[in-house]
Structure formats: C-alpha cells, structure tokens
C-alpha cells in the first residue's frame, strides 16, 4: 500500500462517520479537526473502523498520529504493509 492509497482508506472511513462533510478538498498537511467538523468521538470512530475493517490497532498513545491525512498515512501505511506481509 502506498501513502496515497492509505489516505484514501482514511478518507473513506471519514466519509462514513462525517457524512455531512465535503471531503473533495481535504488538505493532507492540515489537521483534520481544523478543516472538518470532527470531535473526539469521531476520532474513536476512525480507530474503531480501522480495527473492524482492516484489523489495524491504534494504541491510545498513538491517536495523535491520526491528526492529519499526511501523518495518518505516515503512521498507518507501514502497519497495513506489515499486515499484508503476514497474510
């Protein structure tokens, strides 16, 4: 998985948990909370959906790594690739 593919995975999740938001122009380097109506429960949703849909665990100490699309991809892409290598 590339970083860009990983961002798409995260955006697909956000599309479901924040269905009123326009996601056509999300800036990858800007904090998601600064450009979208997302609260702490929504971030827990992102963590839950990564777990349910993709088997990816994000420990609480790492939640901050999901702040922006860029930081999410940087953090999650190796996890996706490690998981793919195992299977």
């Amino acid at each position, binding site marked *: 998985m590339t970083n860009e593919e990983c961002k798409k995975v995260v955006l697909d999740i956000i599309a479901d*948990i924040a269905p009123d938001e326009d996601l056509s122009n999300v800036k990858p380097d800007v904090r998601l909370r600064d450009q979208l109506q997302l609260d702490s429960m929504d971030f827990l*949703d992102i963590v839950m959906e990564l777990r349910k849909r993709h088997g990816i665990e994000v420990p609480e100490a790492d939640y901050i790594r999901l702040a922006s699309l860029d930081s999410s991809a940087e953090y999650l892409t190796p996890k996706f690739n490690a998981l793919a290598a195992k299977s």
Partner: protein
Amino acid sequence: MTLSRIVITGVGLTAPNGNSLQEFRRNLLGGVAGIEWLDVRYMGRLLAGVCHFDPLRHQKKKEVRVGTRAGSISIWCAREALADSALGFEAFPKDRIGIYIGCTEHGNVETENEIFAISKFNYDTKYWSHYHNPRTVANNPAGEASLNLGITGPAYTIGAACAAGNLGLIHASQMLRLGEVDVAICGGVSESIHTFGIFAGFKSQGALATNDVPARASRPFDRARNGIVVSEGGCLYTLERLDDALARGARIYGEIAGYGVNSDASDYVLPNPIRQAECVRKSIAHAGLVPADIHIVNTHATATPLGDIQECEAIRAVFGSGCPDTYINNTKSFIGHCMGAAGALELAGNLPSFDDLMVHPTINVDDLDPACALPGLVLNTPAKAARIDTILNNSFGMLGINSTLIVRRFVA
C-alpha cells in the same frame, strides 16, 4: 392555592399512518390503518407499525448516525410541535423550556445491535461501540432533542411503560404549574419495533398479533383479536400556562382538565380493572366533572383477549349506562400499539373532534366480543356527535401503572 390553567398550543407527531396531525386525523376518519410487514432480527417477517417521516428534515446525517431512532422521533416531534405553536422559538429563552418525554423502554435497540455486531467478531468486546452509553442512557430521547434544539432547560424522560405518553403531559403540566419552566415540550416516543426482544417477549407471552392482512391485524374488541401489533411513533405537544398563551395570541387546541395516575400493585403483567376504574374516577374528579360530562373515552385496549375485557369492565363500572353523550373509541386498531407514544398519539388523534365533532371509530370489529360491548362504542365508521367538550384518554402499562388524562375544549 389556585393552579394555573394549562393549554395545548402545538402538536408534532409521527404515526404509522401519518406524519402530521392533519394527515393522521384524515386517516383515522377515513379508516386507513398503518400496519405493514417488517423483517425482525432472528424472527423474520412480523406485523408492525412503521413511521415514514424524513429525519433529515430536522437532523444532519451525522446526528442520525450517532443518535438513536427514539432521538430522531423526539427531534422530529419536538420541532414540529414548536413550529406548530408559532412560539417564536428562536428568540425564546432556551433555559425556560422543558422537555418531558414518556418512554416505555429505552436502550434495548442499541444493546441488541451491539451484541449482534460483536457476534461477528467472536464476541470480542473491543469492537463494542463507544456510543453505546450515550445511546442507551434513559434520558437519551429527551437529551437528543435538547442537543438538536439548543434547549437548556430540564430535558428528561419518564419511564412508565405504556402509560408513559400521558405521563409526559401530566408531568409537564405539573412543572408548568410549579413555575419550573414557561413552555413544555412533552408527550411520548417509541422506537420499540427496532428491538426483536419486545416482539419475542409478547410472542412468548402469547400476546403478539397475527393476521394475513396487515391492516386487519390490530382489532381491539373483536372476537377474533389475538394480540398486540408492536409499533413505533411519537407525539410531543407544546404546553403553556393559559395566561402566557393568551398574551401571545396562541392558537389553543384544548385545555388540560384533569388527570389520574395510580398503580395496580397486583401483577407484573395482568391489568387490574378495579385500579383502572379508580384511576379513571380520580381523573374525572380532578377535572371537577362527573362521568356523564365525558364525551369521548379513548381506550387503551391493545387487542389482547383478556386486557380488552378488563378495560371494558373498568369503563362499565365508571360510566355504566347513564352517560348517553359518551362515545368510546380506540386508536390502536389503526396504528397498533405505539408503546410509550401511545397515550400521546391517541390523544392527538382525537383532539380535532373539538372542531369537527366527529368521533373516529374503532376499526376491524367484524364480530364484537359481547364482553367488550359498551354503550357508545363507535365501531368501524366515524360518529357525528352533537357536542364534544371533553376527551378522556386511558393509557395503562406493565407493572400496573395506570394513567388517565382529560382534555377539554378551551373556553375562555
């Protein structure tokens, strides 16, 4: 102490056969029921009353996703009731508005959904939703309405089984009289059709209706009745003190005339006609009336073989044969049993009688059970009355909670 007079100045509702008072009333007078087939988890196709309002009229998609069905029903009804009352809500002090919503139960839907969801993950609770607690707290339906509307006054639910809809109005009247709030949004809601447990429970109890034709399934007082049709729904009213309503020139649907609430203290499930009659008598005395003054008795009857007979026994004991101007009807024959919403919805279905002098019937009575024969029972087609000044609304619930509410035509 002189108690303030309390009046109804707005109605917001969703019923299986209508999403406004006008549509609901038209269908009650036109004999149009609202029962359909519903796929219920683990159980298959069952009869149910389903509401078809559009939640996105008053909620964002995210609110619908995060919230509950009972929350959506509450928000719909609250916003429709406020709009109907022409209160000038935007400018009204939000801390002076109370929300009091009756519920039969709350939380079963979300709990069942979560257990089903984690069953797909070998019951690993790390997949349990972080929304479970806010969705299942007992105040959820009222709390969601307060969030959506920005109402900062008291907002909570009243658990009173299927008597809850009336209790919402009664409690709101008390809070208005105490001066706790200036406007009350009150009534009842139910999301129960989204839990299999309520269907399974009634089925195990031998009290779940079956019929090949959905519209014919809910048949109180008919000899062939065979149980309850479970329905969802909601009805919330805007209530105000009369002086406030008059000062702003509000339209007044009717006045809270009196009420009675008591408990059977005799059985978990079985009704008690002696206590029911006592509750009805209390309400009539509270209103300063006598039985012959009551023009419509809207029954609670749910179409269970025994329950209907027992309520008829209670009504017979109070009204006997000396009340020639008293009509008796039943709304569940159209919409099934809307549980916590039942009392509030069934009252709404009758309120327009003050204006049109029509009494909606009890439908689906092909063969009247002689044990349910009552003078004034309106069967299958509407009746035209000479005058309708009072409506008495019965709602009873499990664990023996009884409520009777009387609304009278407003006369200054």
